[in-house]
């Protein structure tokens, strides 16, 4: 049964190859159906594989082919089928399929439709390799592959230079993280002699033999890799810019799947981190700071996709908080619920942008509720889910993270509550400004306003349902018992794959925390309601009452500008110096000097070539005689 897993990445790869090489001339409908159905097939196989794992099948390694054999270094290209990878498979292919279907509607009028679908398929292929790989090396193939696809899709509309810049930024910032990942992998190999997950962690547990200091170095290096891919401080700057890509890309790559690769990797290495205090606390603090930074910046942004992007940064930060505190399954739980509601929100925003003829500024929206009822309702569900209102998906996963923080570190606990409050506030600010009040766009836009086609609204509806019920896979004890359902189902499912935290809190504490979280969320929502709905404050007026703090947030803490001054400008200056002085004077001097030296010596020696045949023969004979005499 596990052997079937090979098919899962194969379908999208086949789709990519077919569309790339034979796709020309087919109708958009055919290409869209083809691309979507490959993902659907993958999803069906994933469900089959997942079911066997759910019924207690042992983790299996499925070898695809021999890959690298060099001395003691032996890596097969093989897939690891265990609870962690199968649950990732499930939501990558599931959410991926919905987003493919959505894209057929969203990109329908785009001239690069075939290219877009091909890239999406290729992305899903690499993402599946990433989570299926049975070693760091195989995972790295997927890791780089999704990076390339992300690059190509951010710069999809390559005729606008701004998009290309964003694509390059994403790629370059990710390179920094990847370097950390490579260093971590090399260290790991140097100390254990293997990079296979089952040798390191699951069965063999070679990782336990690593000395403490090295363990910290490995943990932090690997985390730097995760920082790049999952947009954590200080490598978070690429993700908001990545919104230059088409909206389905933002939903699939920059919210639901690729950016959670860092969380996957740390969860996969949980045995490495579980016994390493320092690396873990680095993760906690990087996570909570990123989370706060993202949440506060999102409060003041006016671009609908930028708000969601910073929200993603913030939610990823929360996931890392959970990872750093040893609650690996909780982080995965939040990854899954986040994939549902953030994909929903992005697709919803895409639907809004589609209806608004490309407008992304919420200052020019408003009152869309009556024009786009389905988008409005599903967006509202997503907003409630991310804000953490009982019993939507976001509530349970976020509550679990907050609960773990409560047990482990009170400061982080307070900060995570603050993040929750900000999240609820900025999401409802976005919601009210977009869907309520009066329409503030141009007449043309108002005339053109329409609900999106079925291919876009149906995925929205499915994701909305998932955003409501998705949390039930990890019900807390107190709620689960009341409702007569399994509680902590996900934790039990992931037991064999990741290290489990030893947190046992009393039922009353659990309930109390849930009440606090709900109060915080509802309070923020009410506050957003009074400002943006009741008093009808508009984003424009925000700017009038701009304080220095708001300015700071609106400009994203000037982090891009600081990087610009600290890194880009000096590099520019050095390049300028090298280009204006070293290159023309020294390097060109050496190269051209060699040329003229040869030319001049040649000029002297060519005088010997007189053209007189008898002289040549004379010299020839003299030489011959000289040689004969010297013998």
């Amino acid at each position, binding site marked *: 049964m596990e052997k079937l897993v090979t098919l899962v990445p194969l379908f999208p790869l086949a789709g990519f190859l077919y569309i790339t090489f034979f796709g020309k001339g087919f109708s958009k409908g055919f290409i869209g159906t083809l691309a979507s159905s490959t993902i659907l097939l993958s999803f069906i196989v994933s469900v089959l594989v997942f079911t066997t794992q759910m019924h207690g099948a042992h983790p299996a390694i499925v070898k695809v082919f021999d890959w690298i054999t060099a001395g003691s270094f032996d890596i097969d290209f093989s897939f690891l089928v265990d609870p962690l990878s199968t649950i990732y498979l499930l939501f990558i292919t599931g959410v991926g399929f919905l987003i493919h279907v959505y894209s057929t509607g969203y990109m329908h009028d785009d001239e690069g439709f075939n290219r877009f679908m091909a890239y999406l398929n290729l992305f899903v292929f690499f993402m599946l390799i990433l989570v299926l790989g049975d070693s760091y090396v195989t995972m790295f193939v997927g890791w780089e592959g999704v990076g390339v696809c992300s690059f190509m899709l951010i710069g999809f509309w390559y005729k606008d230079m701004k998009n290309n810049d964003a694509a390059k930024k994403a790629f370059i910032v990710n390179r920094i993280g990847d370097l950390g990942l490579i260093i971590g992998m090399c260290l790991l190999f140097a100390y254990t002699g293997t990079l296979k997950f089952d040798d390191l962690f699951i069965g063999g547990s070679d990782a336990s033999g690593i000395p403490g200091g090295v363990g910290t170095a490995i943990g932090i290096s690997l985390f730097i890799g995760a920082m790049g891919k999952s947009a954590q401080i200080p490598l978070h700057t690429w993700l908001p810019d990545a919104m230059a890509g088409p909206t389905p890309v933002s939903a699939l790559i920059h919210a639901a799947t690729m950016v959670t690769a860092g969380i996957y990797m740390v969860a996969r290495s949980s045995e490495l981190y579980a016994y390493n205090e320092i690396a873990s606390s680095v993760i906690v603090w990087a996570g909570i700071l990123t989370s706060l930074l993202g949440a506060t910046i999102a409060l003041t942004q006016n671009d609908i996709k930028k708000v969601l992007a910073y929200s993603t940064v913030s939610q990823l930060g929360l996931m890392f908080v959970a990872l750093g505190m040893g609650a690996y399954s909780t982080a995965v739980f939040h990854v899954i619920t986040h994939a549902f509601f953030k994909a929903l929100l992005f697709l919803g925003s895409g639907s809004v942008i589609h209806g608004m003829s490309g407008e992304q500024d919420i200052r020019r929206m408003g009152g869309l509720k009556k024009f786009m009822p389905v988008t409005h309702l599903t967006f509202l569900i997503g907003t409630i889910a991310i804000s953490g209102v009982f019993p939507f998906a976001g509530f349970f996963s976020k509550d679990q993270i907050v609960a773990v923080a409560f047990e482990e570190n009170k400061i982080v606990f307070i900060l995570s509550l603050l993040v929750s409050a900000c999240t609820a506030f900025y999401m409802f600010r976005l919601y009210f400004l977009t869907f309520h009040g009066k329409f503030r766009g141009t007449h043309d836009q108002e005339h053109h306003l329409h609900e999106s086609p079925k291919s876009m609204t149906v995925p929205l509806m499915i994701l909305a349902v998932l955003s409501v019920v998705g949390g039930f896979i990890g019900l807390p004890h107190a709620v689960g018992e009341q409702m007569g359902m399994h509680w902590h189902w996900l934790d039990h499912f992931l037991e064999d794959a990741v290290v489990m935290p030893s947190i046992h809190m009393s039922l009353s504490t659990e309930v109390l925390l849930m009440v606090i979280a709900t109060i915080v969320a509802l309070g923020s929502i009410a506050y957003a309601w009074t400002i943006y709905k009741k008093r009808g404050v508009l984003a424009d007026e925000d700017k009038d009452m701009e304080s220095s703090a708001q300015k700071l947030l609106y400009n994203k803490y000037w982090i891009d500008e600081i990087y610009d001054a600290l890194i880009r400008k000096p590099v520019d200056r050095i390049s300028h110096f090298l280009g204006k002085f070293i290159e023309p004077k020294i390097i060109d001097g050496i190269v051209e000097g060699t040329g003229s030296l040869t030319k001049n010596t040649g000029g002297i020696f*060519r005088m010997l*070539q*007189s*053209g*007189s*045949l*008898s002289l040549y*023969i*004379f010299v020839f*004979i003299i030489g011959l005689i000289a040689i004969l005499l010297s013998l």
Partner: protein
Amino acid sequence: MQLFHNITVNHYLVLSSVLFGLGAFGVLFRRNAIIMFMCIELMLNAVNLTLVAFSKMWNHTDGQVFVFFIMVVAAAEVAVGLAILMMLYRNLHTTDTTVLNKLKF
């Protein structure tokens, strides 16, 4: 027959070196390309003569076989060389080597 018995290999060598010397001087000092060409042939044949002489002396046929090779190569060389010379003469109406110095650099 008696007369030929007195001729030793040394005689042949002397004759050969005289012929070779003549050829070499001809190549060095004549300006007409055809004469130079004939002198080269003379040198080749001087060498052939020594080879045949030694072959007779040691009662060994290797030297004579070698001579055939040299003659074949010389014939080929003559064919090519004369063709070049003929073309030169057709175009320039001279075979004087002091005039043919235009392909220097």
